[in-house]
Every structure is written in structure tokens, then in C-alpha cells.
């Protein structure tokens, strides 16, 4: 990415958005063409089969929730799709490019350039102020520091963390830290954002606020989103959800929110 193509500024303030607005189901057609496709993914650890042939496509700007019981392979699926660990069998396509067979260095570059990540906690650099944490991916891409920081700063107000730019991660609440993480994940205008239980360390209310922000921010910047979650309400905020059981999709990808357990 060149310095000339910085991401568009996030529009408006989303914190005040009512939950109902987020729950509004979107028609599947709005998702557009698939930006990321995993085809027939297999992965096993010794005798344990974590993935037994999963096929999943994520559309441009589409939010997909992955649910399922513990140990059903949700995280493994996310790792395979995101190029964190290669599948034993199957293919992962990012647009026209196949990424699953790339070497570690190239997969690292793909993750940095095309993907964003929001995990439970702990992947902000504790020594860097919030704004520099957000600016870091841009700097890694070679943007000048001043521009990277200026760009990062623009994400704070829409995410409702205005004024916290110079706090260290240790000086932020869990919810605030996750908002910074969302900014960090989106600042490079990734093709897909991956979130593995992003709210697990938060209380229910804060967790839902954060997910609502995540879904809306991803949608606004046109990124696909895969959220692994146990919370049906989080799943409801997404465009559709998939259910994993024993490493396989238990239900076909449905355009409607998954039912409560």
C-alpha cells in the first residue's frame, strides 16, 4: 500500500448508535462477491481432528459469526483462514490469490497488509501509547510516522475513545482497550477482520457495545468480518452465522441469525 492510498476516514460517531440499528438483519445480497474463501479445510493435531472439511466464504463488508461448542474447531478455522497456521488440506483464497500454501514470511505480510485482528486481550504493545499502537501497522507498511499517527488519531473519536490517545494500554479499561484494538485492526483498511472471542474478557454490556462497534466499523470500511463468539446476541449483530460441531459446519451457512441455544 502506498502512502497515497490511506484508508478513508471513518464517518460519523458510532458509539451512540442504538443496538436495534445494529441488529437489523441485512440481506445476503448486500454482501457482494466473496473476498475470502476457505474450501474443504482440514486440520488435525495428532489424533484430534480439529477441522474436517469446512468450506466458508466471506463477502465484502459481510459480518459472519462462527459459533459452536468448545473444542469444535472455531479458533482453528479462524487461524487457517487468516494464514496463521496452514491447513493440512484445502485451499484459502483471498480474492484472486491463494494464500494457504505461502511460506511463513509471506503469510506474515498478508496478515499485516490484508487482515485485521481483534482478540480477547493482550495484543496491544503495553509500552506504546494507544495512538501509536494504532499507528504501528501503518508504520510497518512504511508510512511516515507523522502521517501514520495523524491517520490513527482520526479513529479515536468515532470509536468513542477520544482523549485517550496518549494513554498506555495498562491505563485503559478492557472496553477502551478493545476499541483501540478495533482501530488498530481497521486502520490499514483490511480486506477481512478476524475476531476470536473479542468480548470474552468484558462484561456483557461492554462486550455488546464493542461488538456493535466492530461490526459497524468493519461494514463502514468495507471489510469482511469473521467473529468467533459464544454469545448469541453478538451473532445476531452479524449478517449471518455458522455453527461448527466436531470440526464441521453443522448447519449450512444461513442468511438468518443463529437460534439461541
Amino acid at each position, binding site marked *: 500500500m502506498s502512502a497515497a492510498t490511506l484508508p478513508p476516514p471513518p464517518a460519523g460517531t458510532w458509539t451512540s448508535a442504538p443496538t436495534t440499528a445494529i441488529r437489523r438483519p441485512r440481506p445476503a445480497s448486500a454482501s457482494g462477491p466473496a473476498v475470502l474463501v476457505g474450501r474443504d479445510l482440514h486440520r488435525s493435531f495428532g489424533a484430534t481432528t480439529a477441522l474436517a472439511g469446512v468450506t466458508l466464504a466471506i463477502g465484502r463488508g459481510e459480518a459472519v459469526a462462527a459459533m459452536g461448542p468448545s473444542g469444535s474447531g472455531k479458533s482453528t478455522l479462524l487461524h487457517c483462514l487468516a494464514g496463521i497456521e496452514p491447513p493440512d488440506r484445502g485451499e484459502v483464497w483471498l480474492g484472486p490469490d491463494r494464500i494457504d500454501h505461502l511460506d511463513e514470511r509471506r503469510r506474515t505480510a498478508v496478515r499485516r497488509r490484508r487482515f485485521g485482528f481483534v482478540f480477547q486481550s493482550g495484543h496491544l504493545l503495553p*509500552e*506504546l501509547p494507544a495512538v501509536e499502537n494504532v499507528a504501528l501497522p501503518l508504520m*510497518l507498511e512504511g508510512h511516515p510516522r507523522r502521517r501514520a499517527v495523524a491517520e490513527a488519531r482520526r479513529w479515536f473519536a468515532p470509536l468513542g475513545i477520544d482523549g485517550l490517545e496518549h494513554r498506555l494500554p*495498562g491505563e485503559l479499561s478492557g472496553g477502551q482497550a478493545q476499541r483501540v484494538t478495533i482501530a488498530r485492526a481497521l486502520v490499514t483498511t483490511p480486506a477481512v477482520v478476524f475476531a476470536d472471542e473479542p468480548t470474552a474478557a468484558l462484561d456483557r454490556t461492554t462486550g455488546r457495545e464493542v461488538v456493535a462497534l466492530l461490526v459497524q466499523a468493519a461494514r463502514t470500511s468495507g471489510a469482511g468480518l469473521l467473529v468467533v463468539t459464544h454469545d448469541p446476541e453478538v451473532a445476531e449483530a452479524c449478517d449471518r452465522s455458522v455453527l461448527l460441531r466436531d470440526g464441521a459446519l453443522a448447519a449450512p451457512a444461513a442468511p438468518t441469525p443463529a437460534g439461541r441455544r
Partner: protein
Amino acid sequence: MVVPRLAALFWQRGGARQRATLALTAAGVAASVVLALLALSVGPALSTRGDHVAWRTAVAVDADQATAVQRTTADRFGDRQITRVDLAPTGRGTPPVPPGLRAFPAPGVVWLSPALAALVAEQPHEVLADRYPGEVVGEIGPIGLAHPDDLVVVVGRPAGSLASSIDAQSRYAAPTSDGVAVPIAGFARHGLTSELELYRTLARMAAVLLVVPTFLLVGAAARLTAAQREQRLAVLRLAGATPGSVVGLTALEILGAALLGTVVGLVGYVAAVPVAAHVPLAGGAFAAEDLRLGAGWLLATLAFVPVAAAGSAVAALRKVVVGPLGVSRAVGRRRPSLLRFLVVPVAWVAFVSSARTMRDGGSTLGALAGLGAVIATLAVIGPWVAWALGATLARLARRPATLIAGRRIVADPRAAYRTVSGMVLAGLVAGFLFAVVPTLRAADLGDGGTAEVAVQLPQDQGAAVRAAVRAADPGSRLVLSDRSGGDPALAAGEVQGYVEASSPAQLDRARTAVLAAAPGALASSYDNGLTYALLLDDLGRASVVMALATLVMASAAIAISTSASILDQRTTLARLRLVGTPVSVLQRARRWQTLLPLVFASSGAMASGVVAGVVMLLAFAVAPERIAEPAVGQLVLLALAAVVAGALVVAATRPLLVATSRSSPRG
């Protein structure tokens, strides 16, 4: 006790990496035990040496109680010092037997040390042997010699032949001066020359300086082993183990490693002594049995080192509070206060004034304590300097690696400084030595190029001696003052003068000619320069050993510290890699984070060492214009070596970074 059971569990299950840390700790302890014990054993060995040479310094008694007269002269052959002791009975009582001789030397009898006997045998008689007229009846035994290479001669003189200066002696302020005949009744068996005492002080300082880096190493190792088991300990904490048991566990392991290291070090020391004994110090090698420390010392080492190591482990872990959710390492803004700088002028004033007191006859200990205070200031201001460096780097950074490095230093400047503190010590020692030694070398206390020897002889033999000198070598001449008396050291009928020669070799012949022609004459060439050159050679050797030893220890401490910090940050590192941060960026950040403080701390320490060395020189009344330029070239080389060592250590620990950052993103 829960701690030993936990320890056993962890040892069984402990990873190879943890065992490697403990092995490194044990090796570091062993190495420093060997070096420090060797440095310490120089003290007793020098005392023994001092006892062996004590008899040569005459102990004056009242003339009417004296049984003998002793005159010790500093003689010289080439650039080697010869100690000549003339002894004459007074005729009253039984004269004492000098140590190393079987009997009081009869008139006309000569005793030589083995080394001097060999030298005499290989030189033409007119060059050396003729100085000692008489029959060589035996060799001086080791009890009367400093070391096997000691050149000593005892010459028996007829009764009354040395009496001439007894009266002069009584008017002399310093009864043991070189070339003065002193009435004696016995020989001293104990004593330490000021030169040997200086050696002993230096050796003790070296021992301390060798031990300090060990404790830095041990502290770093404690932090590393704690970091390595952080997760397992956190689990145990959830299961109810107390923070105390965590600290106790680590201390116990360090204690074990240090105990092992100490035992290995003691064995290594015993094995190293016979080899080390061959290294000449103060002019000669030691006998291995003199160098060997007593069992008390070894037992004390065995007890003290492991306990002190465990203590420094506890001190290192004091702030690492292990909570049920892992070691808490909340990153905050711990900017060290500028008030810290107040200690700098205080310590320097203390140092300068104590150095000045020492010059005016005060104690050396005070000046050393002042020097210690100056060293301590580095530990106080070091973190502030690290903070300032980190803040500057973070402000100026344009690339991610430098930004991360700067912010990390700012987040914990104490840790940044601690990592390189071993190098600070090495730099300080090197700066001090490399500032002092050139001045000492430049100071020309010896006779340098001028070939001269002072003589004192009966006036009536003047003409004969003058002829003998000219006969020995036409280029040499004897110059005598034309008046006799006047000097209180001169006996009636004696004159003073000097021999001039064209070269040191001619001078040796001329000196021999003087003594051959006038056996009662005194030809003294006490030369500070000789002792001094020896001291400088020794100091040069010792400073190279010290610099290398501290450099190696400091590098090991950096290796351990940086490994610990990788493990401390394993979660963050794994996540950073996961979101696409290249390992090269993380590695570059580590390089900056280590090398920036290293460069500044070690060069700052060297500069402090240089200033401290100059202050010491001034305190020893060296005129400012005679202080030579410090060996800047060597210091720059050493600083480069430190940087290279640091860079190598950072590079060598890269696999740990790769492994840690590749670790499973789960958990």
C-alpha cells in the same frame, strides 16, 4: 515444606531452556569463584613473600647492644635489581643467623641466591663476580627469598669494617635507608614492604570487582528462571501457592546452581593454582603452596557465595509479584526523578576530598570508599540516563523498530539499565586503569637513559678506584666531590661521588671495578624505576585480564537479561507476530533497546573512570602537566568490543525470539 517439593517437581519437568539458564549461572559463578579466589590468594602469598624479605630491612638497636652491623644496598645488574646485604660482627655476643643461611657469614665469605649464582656463573668475572670478593660458601634458601628468581647476595665483612658509619647512622633520621650501616641484634621475620602492600590492596580490589558482575549475573538468572515458569507458577498460585513460595522456589534453584558453581569453582581454583603460580607478579613467580588459600577461606567461599547468590536472587525478584493471573508487569510511566542527579556532586565531592585526605597522609580506605561512592552514582543516575535516551529515541523514531525500542526503554528504564550494568562496571574499571597507567608509564622515576651510580668510599682509596674504573672501560669515569665530610651519612675520611658510563653495560663493569678495587665502598643504585616498571607490567597484565573477565561476565548477564525479557513478553510477541509484525522488526527493536543504553552507559562509565583516575593521580601529587593523555585508542577499542559483544548476544538470542513469537496464539 512446599517449596522443596515444588522445586523437585519443576526440576523434573523443567524445560531444557531452564536447565540451560541454571547451567549458565553455575558456570558464571564457577568462573568468578576461580578468578576471585586467585586474586584473593595473591594477598597471603604476598604476605609470605613480605615475611621472606623482611630480614633485609635492618632493625636498628642501640649500638652497645648490637651483635652485628647490617648494610643493605640496592645493587643492580642490567635492568634487574640485586639486593646486597653486608654483615659484620661487632665482636660482642653471638651475631644472628639470617634466614636462608646456615650460619652468620664469616668475613670474606659470600652467600648467593640460586638465581644470582647462576647469573654470576654465566657472566665474565669482571662484569659481575668481582663485585663480591670472597669465597662463595653456599646458596641462600627459599625462606630468605621473595621468589626463585630473587637476586640476593650476603657478604661477610670483618668486624669493625662497617662500624665507620654507625656514628653517622645515629644522626640519621631513617635508620633503614639504603646503604646505611645499622647496628642490629636480630632479623625481622615478618613485614610487608610498601610495594607489596600496594600489590595486596590492588589484588583485593580486583577480587571485589570480579565478584560484583557475578551477582549481576545471578540476579538476571533469577529473573529469567522466574519468567520461564511464570505460567506454571500462575497456575500454582490459582491453586493456592503463595508469592513467598514462588520467590523461595527460585531462590532455592539459584542456590543449587550457585552451590554447584562454587564447588566447580573451588575445584577449578585448586587445579588452577599450580598454573597461576607461574605468572610472575612483583618480579617473580610464586610457590604454589604460598598461593593456595587455607581451608578456612575455601569453606567460607562455599558458605558465602551460594547464600549471597540466593540473596541477590531474592532481591531481584522482590518487585516481581506473582499474582494468580501471572506475574504482574503493569507498564507505567516510571520516569526517574531528576533529583537523582544530586548524588553526583555529593559523591564526587566526597571522592575528591577523601583523595585529598589520602594525599595528606589519610587512609587509602577513605579514598577507596569515595571511589565506591562515585561508582554507586552510576547505578543511581543510570536509569535516568536510560530513560532520557529512550525518550529521545522514541521522539525521533521514524521506523517502528526504533519507536518500539524507545518506548520500551521509557517503560522500564531500570530494567534497560540493569541489562547493561555489567558493562558499566567493566567500562569504569577500564577507564580508570587506562587513565592511570599511561601517566605512570610516562612518569620517569628511574634513571632512564643516564647511566650513573652513586658511590661512597674512603678518600684515600679515591685515586686507586679512579684508575680501576678507567681501566675497566675508557669511556667511564669516577667523579668524586673534593671535600670529605659535610654529609651526616658520611663517616670520617669518606667521600661521595658518582660513576658515569657511556652505556648501562659499561656501567655494570665500572660498578664492578669500583667494588673490586675498594671492597669497603658503597655503590648504590636504588632505582624506583625498576620496581615501578615491574608494577606497571603487572598492572597492564591484570587490567587486560580484568577487562576481559568483566566483559565476558557482562555479556553473559546481557544474554540472560534479554532472554528473560523475551519470555516476559511472550504473549505480546506472539500476538505481534500474529497480526503480521515481521520478526526482523522485533529483532531490530531488541538491538536498539540493548545497544543504545549499552553504548552510552559504557562510554559514560569509561569517562567517569578516566576522571576518577585523574583525580586519584592528582591526589597522589602528580603535577597536572605531567598527567598523560588517557589511552583513548584502547578505550575506544574496548567500547567497540563491548558493543560487538552486545550485538552478538542480541543476535545469538534471536532463535529464542523466533520460537517465542511463533508460539501458539492460543491461551
